[in-house]
């Protein structure tokens, strides 16, 4: 088994008497896309800043590619790209000059630098606006530029803090596509976001943090599943739904969770795929005028809220 590229162990960070991060531990394998989810003030940004050497742990350790962030910050910085939730712009500087500056600052020279800047501009679709002053960019373009800067030294690990915040739907889709491409290139991506549905689509794993503690670490499916013992189905009928309600109330192991205009959302106990097929057949044979029947996946947002309710 290969060594995980990110290893966080018993990480703690205190700000005076406030414990922002309390004993956080996790490991991330190379090439995975991991979503980092938590409410405001849960400790996400603090943890991420320590991962990229911008803050020091009070105790515990973080190793990126086997290098400790405290002992070898320079080595870690070569391996990590950090994209903060907000980045400042420079006056009197074009998009090209901005990336060129970071290329120089990372030690690229001459043609190698120009080539790298060109590659990044093409990847982030900024090539056509290279001469534009960076303080005139839209939010979406700005985020792409910020991602470009993060990629300029070709890091193995990308740590992205709320990269899609404030983007319009089009820019969000574009950004999501860029993250997918990066994942295909084998980058390890650690990404926090409030738009949980998008994280669900992008990520292999999800980490939930609440009040400075990790409260869940698992695959997206493990969260969106309602569990093996129950399912939620949405049933829609032709005309008055009262017949449906009456049928459900009389049926064992079923409970209405939402009454809809022309149907209901129903929790079914001890249900697997075959049981649900049987349920539909029974409904139809009992004369309930069903015109739509489908299983409802649990939304990530609901899983998140349920988890917060369950955490101490």
């Amino acid at each position, binding site marked *: 088994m290969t060594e995980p590229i990110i290893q966080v162990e018993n990480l703690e960070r*205190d700000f005076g008497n406030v414990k922002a991060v309390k004993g956080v531990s996790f490991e991330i394998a190379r090439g995975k896309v991991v979503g980092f989810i938590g409410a405001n003030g849960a400790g996400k940004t603090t943890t991420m800043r320590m991962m*990229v*050497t*911008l803050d*020091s*742990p*009070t*105790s*515990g*350790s973080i190793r990126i590619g086997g290098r400790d962030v*405290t*002992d070898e*910050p*320079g080595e870690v*910085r*070569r391996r*990590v790209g*950090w994209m*903060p939730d*907000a*980045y*400042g*712009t*420079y*006056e*009197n*500087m074009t998009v090209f*000059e901005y990336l060129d*500056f*970071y290329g*120089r*600052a*990372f*030690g*690229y*020279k*001459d*043609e*190698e630098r120009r080539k790298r800047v060109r590659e990044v501009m093409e990847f982030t679709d900024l090539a056509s606006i290279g001469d534009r002053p960076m303080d005139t960019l839209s939010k979406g373009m700005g985020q792409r530029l910020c991602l470009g*800067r993060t990629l300029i*030294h*070709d890091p193995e690990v990308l740590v992205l803090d709320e990269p899609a915040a404030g983007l319009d739907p089009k820019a969000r889709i574009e950004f999501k596509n860029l993250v997918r491409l990066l994942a295909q290139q084998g980058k390890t991506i650690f990404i926090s976001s409030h738009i949980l549905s998008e994280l669900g689509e992008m990520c292999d794993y999800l980490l939930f943090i609440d009040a400075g503690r990790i409260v869940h670490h698992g695959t997206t499916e493990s969260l969106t599943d309602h569990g093996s013992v129950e399912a939620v189905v949405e049933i829609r009928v032709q005309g008055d739904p009262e017949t449906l309600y009456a049928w459900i109330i009389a049926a064992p192991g079923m409970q209405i969770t939402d009454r809809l205009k022309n149907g209901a959302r129903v929790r079914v106990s001890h249900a697997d795929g075959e049981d649900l097929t049987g349920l539909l057949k029974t409904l139809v044979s009992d004369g309930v005028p069903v015109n739509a029947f489908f299983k409802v996946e649990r939304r990530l947002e609901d899983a998140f809220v349920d988890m917060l309710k369950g955490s101490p």
Partner: protein
Amino acid sequence: MTSTSTRADFGDWLSPMLVKELRQGIRSKVFMAAFFLTQVLMILSVVFNLTAVNEGDGAGKMVDFLNGLFWFLIGVPLLFLMPIRGFGSLYGEIKAGTLELVFLTRLSALRIAAGKWTALMVQTLLLVAAVLPYVLLRYFLGSVDVVQDLQSVLILLLASGMLTAATIALSPYESKILRALFSVGMIFGFIFLLFGLIGVIAGNAIRGSMGGSFAPWTFYFGAILFAPAFIFLGLEVAASHIAPPAENHAIRKRLLGIYLLLAAALLALLGANAAAAYRVALVLLGVVVIDTLAEPQRFVRSVYMPFLKQGPAGKTLALFFTPGWVSASWFLIILTAVGGGLLGLHGQLDDREDVLRIVSLLGWLIFPAALIRLAAPETKYFLGLYIALQFLFAAVTFLVNIMAGISQEPMTMWLCPLPPCTFLLTFFGQVKDMQMNDFLWVTGLVTAASLGLLLARTITPLRDIRASLLQNSPKDA
């Protein structure tokens, strides 16, 4: 990541920060305005000069005036407009959140600060280059010595470099109160420097009062020894404020303190005015002491490891050269010993007044620091409190001195337990001969007690640091 060795791009020879700053700076409105304003004012100055030359009688006074005006017009952009831009250089980046992204590259805090300074100086040089034709034109119009004019430009440039380093040193401070205080101080400093320097330059240029050469060689040698040290100190102060905790800037800053004393000693050895040389060194040393005593105490294991690897000698050095006010307090012992030794060697402690001046200077520096560390050892507002206390002591000294003058009573004696007050009284020659011994004893004792108190206050943090190192885990101490 690899790097090619060939450097076809001229910018590759320069610091990345300098390239960035120049790209931004030369397009900035302030630089453009300063450049065009200087040109317009120079043209006006030459036109007036031409008029004065044709005036015949009374031309001498007019030339004097125009000479002053000429240097004033050069002085404003060099000593004010360009240096003042340094004040916002790091602050702007901190506020915009761009600085920490730069830290994730290979650039160190010192290279960032140095890049900012160099870029401002290159722009200042551009302004100077644009002024040079007018300097030559003045020569052809008569009544000036072009060599002296060029020397004057050089001195202005040096002063501009030092002022720019000072403004960059102050630029990382985010506190609005501190920034307001610095701004007021800078404006007063600018007025003092501008009129002082221009008075000297204009006067000397006309009369050649130093027998043909503009200034004695010791002036230039002193400038060579102290000006780069001052600039480096300013940049180090700025760098240490913006640097990540893992960077150790304490070593260079503290060694610079020792260098200043040695530079003064060298000047004195070479026959320069020892008192003046030490005065300059002590002023700069004051900046080193205040800055190091204001350093927050953080424990970062990686800072201590290089010292610990050197065995017992390394451990001893760590006590004096690791970042934070704790080791800064111990470093004061070295500074006091080296400074006292050198001052004594060059006859600067021969009479009681000299001794009182030096002791009270030390007290002026450390007494407020001891008070603050006694009341709130880990305060985040050290510098603000320190400046406030210094203002308070200055106000008390001023009031008591006035009252003493009115009542004809020796009321200033009441101030001898307060070294900052003693220092101000000594500085302005308000300590009478008969009071000298009392002042010396009391101020000396209080100063020694202040140092003792500071050192005593370091015991707990030192224990914490030791415990953290033994645990082998990072912990804020």
